[in-house]
């Protein structure tokens, strides 16, 4: 395993953040690995793996003025990580319905008990303010088989008045 850092940034979104941050990391001779950026509730968020020859404290020192200027919270962790460690999902799950408190907890608890290892999760609230709609997409590995996941989803749908369905993922390698 190489010496990777995980950089987490959160703050008010504005154009150019990714360019400024990655430029600052490049100036530190940083090597970027995997990254995930998205807007959550109008906020800019990113987590990215970076390998920098400098120590964590030096990286923090050099990033702080850039993050202060951009008004971003930043957090840096030394992590055990490596590239080329992707796990292939074998199931995609969609859950949606009227927004309700606790639905993420109930859904993920049921899926955990059904043996699902979640690899990706995206959860959103759409609709309008008066009748918000909750939408969640998950990709994962069904450790106890697809049937167990399907049964868990059917039960979840019945008990919570949501639509919950799964589609097997059969990756075509050619």
């Amino acid at each position, binding site marked *: 395993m190489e010496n990777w850092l995980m950089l987490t940034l959160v703050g008010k979104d504005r154009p150019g953040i990714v360019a400024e941050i990655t430029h600052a990391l490049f100036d530190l001779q940083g090597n970027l690995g995997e990254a995930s950026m998205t807007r959550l509730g109008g906020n800019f968020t990113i987590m990215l793996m970076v390998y920098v020859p400098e120590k964590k404290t030096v990286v923090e020192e050099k990033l702080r003025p850039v993050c202060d200027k951009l008004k971003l919270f930043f957090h840096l962790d030394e992590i055990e990580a490596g590239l080329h460690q992707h796990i292939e999902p074998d199931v995609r799950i969609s859950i949606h319905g009227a927004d309700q408190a606790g639905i993420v907890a109930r859904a993920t608890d049921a899926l955990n008990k059904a043996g699902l290892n979640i690899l990706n999760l995206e959860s959103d609230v759409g609709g309008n303010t008066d009748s918000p709609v909750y939408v969640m997409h998950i990709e994962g590995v069904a450790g106890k088989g697809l049937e167990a996941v399907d049964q868990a989803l059917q039960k979840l749908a019945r008990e919570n008045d949501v639509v919950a369905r799964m589609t097997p993922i059969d990756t*075509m*390698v050619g």
Partner: protein
Amino acid sequence: MALLNVLIYPDERLKQISQPVKEFSEDIKKFVRDLEETFRSFPGCVGIAAPQVGRFERIVLVDISYKPQHVNHGFLVLINPEITSSEGASLGREGCLSVPDYTGKVERAKSITLEACNENGEEHQFRMSGYEARAVQHEIDHLDGKLFLDRLVSRRNALSKRIELST
């Protein structure tokens, strides 16, 4: 029989356009056998195209018969393949021998009609859909210097599709 070396992206040769096979010679038959041996040496792989092993002729092999849940034509040797019609659209996840450790969602036609020769030069027509049609489209792309990376649909874009079909 011989195992052939598979080109790995970003090898520029994967962007080369392959030429039609003009003569169905013994050399072509021997190459098809070597290509098949190479293809079968990768468990889980359902197809291969000649340019993936550095031979820029329009030859692809597809075999999804080990996935009986998908309707299929068995082992296919497709030389000078032409998709003559296509219908519908479907999102599915693809990977590639030439792009290790990466998979992504790609939109393909759901059903295709295909004309191709076998290694003896005999012309055949196929009608196929779903997983097999996806595999054939992926392999024919290689003949035109395209990889599935050129057709990726990002995860978030995929969510905005009204219907996400799986093949």
